[in-house]
């Protein structure tokens, strides 16, 4: 018994000492790390919207920024992701007030496309093609008559994904250029994005909407700490797309773990999934509870809302 106490106390002391040491290091490095992060972000934003007189205001963390020149909004910068060949391609796109792409930037970091093929989306010549294009023109030449983008030879998937990420992001966020912000609940701007059209018919207040060719519903699931909201667009039995409430929109899951589910990459895992197969979607490691909450929200919302309306 005495031995046991000794053993445990040694472990305890070691742990205490290491905790003190770590908190000291953390305290000293945190400001440096944060400063660097904001510096890089600012640099990237400036690359996407090169104008020395502007400043950026974050609308959604890591996703949307408004660009101010003095008091006036002169454009937006957004970041939108689309799955490429083997990773999520997330271009940072600067848009001027006319809805024209100023510049795009696809950072190498976190990108795992095939070197020499898909990785070429990070090359200047590819990104420069986007400058000055409007919504209808952001297509690969082969895919659309108005397309003005030359794909990368032998890397169609990656170039198509990069192009689509820019186009879809532009479509999604262009409302911020007119009138500024859409007022209302957290899901309102995403509702427009998910319904595909601007005028939707509200079937059940704040819960269920009908668009031209799909339904959109809002549902909540019990997460690790809080309720997690999920906006789901669905047609027949197939989930078309989902949007998960992100921390900026009021989700209160464990930062760095639970909140990770509110990523475009995770959301894209639910694209075109049959409702019965929702459980098969891979969870994020470290955020099992929150992922379960999302899945539960999708399923329970479906049963509750769609069951009655059809």
């Amino acid at each position, binding site marked *: 018994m005495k031995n046991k106490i000794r053993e445990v106390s040694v472990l305890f002391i070691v742990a205490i000492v290491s905790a003190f040491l770590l908190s000291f290091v953390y305290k000293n490095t945190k400001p440096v790390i944060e400063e660097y992060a904001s510096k890089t972000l600012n640099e990237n934003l400036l690359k996407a919207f090169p104008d020395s007189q502007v400043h950026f205001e974050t609308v959604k963390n890591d996703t949307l920024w408004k660009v101010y020149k003095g008091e006036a909004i002169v454009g937006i910068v957004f970041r939108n992701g689309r799955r490429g*060949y083997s990773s999520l391609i997330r271009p940072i796109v600067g848009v001027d007030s006319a809805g024209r792409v100023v510049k795009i930037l696809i950072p190498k970091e976190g990108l795992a496309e*095939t070197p*020499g*093929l898909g990785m070429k989306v990070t090359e200047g010549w590819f990104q420069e093609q986007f400058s000055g294009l409007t919504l209808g023109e952001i297509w*690969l*030449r*082969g895919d659309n008559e108005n397309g003005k983008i*030359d*794909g990368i*030879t*032998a*890397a*169609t*998937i990656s170039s198509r994904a990069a192009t689509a990420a820019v186009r879809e992001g532009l479509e999604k966020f262009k409302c911020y250029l007119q009138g500024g912000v859409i007022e209302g609940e957290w899901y309102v701007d995403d509702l427009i994005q998910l319904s595909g059209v601007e005028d939707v018919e509200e079937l059940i207040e704040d819960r269920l909407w009908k668009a031209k060719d799909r339904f959109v519903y809002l549902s909540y699931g019990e997460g690790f700490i809080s309720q997690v909201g999920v906006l789901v667009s669905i047609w027949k039995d197939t989930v078309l797309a989902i949007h998960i409430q992100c921390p900026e929109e009021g989700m209160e899951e464990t930062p760095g773990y639970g909140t990770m589910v509110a990523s475009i990459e995770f959301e894209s895992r639910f694209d075109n999934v049959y409702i019965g197969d929702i459980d098969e979607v891979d969870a994020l490691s470290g955020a099992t509870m929150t992922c379960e909450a999302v899945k539960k929200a999708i399923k329970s919302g479906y049963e509750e809302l769609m069951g009655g309306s059809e």
Partner: protein
Amino acid sequence: MLQLSPAPHITSPKNIKKIMYGVVGALIPVLMGSIYFFGWRALFLCSLSVLSAIFTEWIFQRVTNRDIRCLDGSAIITGILVAFNIPVNSPWWLPVVGSFFAVFIVKQLFGGLGYNIFNPALAGRAFLVASWPSLMTGNWTPPINGTLSGIPVLDGMTQATPLSLLIMKPNLNVIQSLNSPTMIKTLFIGNTGGCIGETSALLLLIGALFLFIMGYADWRISLSYIGSIFVITGIFYFLGVTPVNPVFHIFSGGVMLGGLFMATDMVTSPVTLKGRWIFGICGGILCVILRLWAGYPEGVSYSILIMNMFVPLLDRLQVRIFGR
């Protein structure tokens, strides 16, 4: 003085040199065909590749003090097959590097002739595809004797093989032309875009027939490989999974070259009959999966390389020992 040698005191007329040079001979008509379709550059690249293979082997055997057997024919086969697996307008150094990798890394470092796990030429091709993907998969020239065989030219995609059109989600017109009898005929003759040695199904079949008759290659592997591709794509065609018919599938791309000359490589295929059937069928299934659902248009080389890995396992499928 009497000589002492172990029994048996007579041997069959087959020997390594005959087998190897037999295979080289079987590849000659294909080479001549590709010179006809693609011009003299095909021969140029092929010679470079062969020289590089032989030279690499010679150097290695010289440096490591082994018997010099760089002219036993196996290096020549590897050289030719590496060249057959690259597009004709590749830079000159591509086949040289490919053959070097095939012979040095894949063959000699594993112990030389008979000890390599992977087919050297295919591994060489895989190396080239991974290292210079745009040169290897986006660099097609139409044969000099015609346009790309009557395929409607897509904007921005003038340079494509019939097979690589498939992965670009083509429209109905293209699919119709891919399914047409003219297309099949062109693919059979070989007057189409593709790697140097893979386009002409006819000439490849002639060469392979010679090998089968001489017993230098096993027809079971070829039959099971190509046959399973045909059957599976046939089923998928009727189910609507793949838009093109099975005949197109087996004549396009490298199925013929791979199934007739690469999968049948003695060193890297199983020794038992049962093993060979399984090898061929699984290889065919893999090839279809890779073709239809993987990133590259072609799946032949990887399907065979993957099956190569299973050969030691398949060799354990021993036929029942007599009386056991």
